[in-house]
């Protein structure tokens, strides 16, 4: 089973989670409402997937592991973008961060890039739980397996800047993730988030 950071994993209940310390009370509640965990950018350890649990408050995040055997369904950001679930709901028309999805969809189609929503928007589209608020940003990941010229990144960043909310876009290279905005500035080195932790890289595509 191949998982990547930002994938959403559906599981049965909080007892499946492996954590070094007792689960806070809110974790049990959050899992009861929406049994989904977000894959963290860290190595899989002995078949246990590094995941995070989202709580109702902004600073409520709990890091744990989920055994592969406990995963009932895996939903990737790219699948969520392909399904375009936001076009079928009223919230998709009302909530700014959900309305902004069409901006990203159009720009990424023009540039022929695979993309998908992450963060609260990805979580809402996967779980159906209305966690996106009027203040939410739109987090997206863009999968770019081959070198992307800075000029192209700048065009995409320009497209995104016209959206109704701030778009926090991460470019996923084979080595890890970089910020679209930072890469579009053209200054090197830039921060690359790898499975082993963050590093400064002059070329985020070169291993």
């Amino acid at each position, binding site marked *: 089973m191949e998982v990547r950071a930002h994938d959403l994993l559906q599981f049965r209940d909080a007892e499946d989670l492996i954590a070094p310390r007792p689960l806070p009370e809110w974790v049990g509640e959050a899992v009861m409402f929406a049994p989904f965990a977000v894959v963290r950018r860290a190595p899989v350890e002995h078949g246990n997937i590094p995941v995070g649990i989202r709580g109702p408050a*902004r*600073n409520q995040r709990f890091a744990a592991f989920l055994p592969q055997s406990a995963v009932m369904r895996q939903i990737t950001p790219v699948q969520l973008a392909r399904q375009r679930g936001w076009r079928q709901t009223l919230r998709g028309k009302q909530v700014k961060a959900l309305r902004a999805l069409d901006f990203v969809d159009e720009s990424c189609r023009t540039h022929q890039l695979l993309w998908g929503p992450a*963060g609260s928007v990805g979580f809402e589209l996967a779980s159906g739980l209305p966690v996106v608020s009027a203040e939410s*940003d739109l*987090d997206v990941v863009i999968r770019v397996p081959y070198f992307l010229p800075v000029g192209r990144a700048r065009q995409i960043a320009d497209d995104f800047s016209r959206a109704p909310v*701030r778009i*926090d876009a991460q470019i996923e290279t084979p080595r890890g993730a970089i*910020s679209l*905005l*930072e890469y579009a500035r053209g*200054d090197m*080195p830039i*921060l690359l*988030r790898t499975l082993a*932790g*963050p*590093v*400064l890289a002059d070329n985020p595509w070169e291993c």
Partner: protein
Amino acid sequence: METFTFEFPATKRLQGRAHVGVVGSGDLEILLEPSTEPRTRVVIRTGCTGFQEKWRLVLERFLTANDVAADIQVNDFGATPGVVTLRLAQALEVSQGR
């Protein structure tokens, strides 16, 4: 939102200024400027409350290894200590004209 300030003694004058990082979840923005006084002052604005002591430790470790008299402004959006340390190193590199 929480704001706090730290001061550490410093001796070496910083050459240039630097602005690195991004406004985005799990990241931070750092503005680094030379200071004429023999100290480094760090002002941190963060949405994640209750991590003041962790910030002090991360900054102390970095500034012990890198003696620079500077004014540092940090706008934090939930960066991990690893990201904070790398962004500080990046800001220092940029200010030295690399």
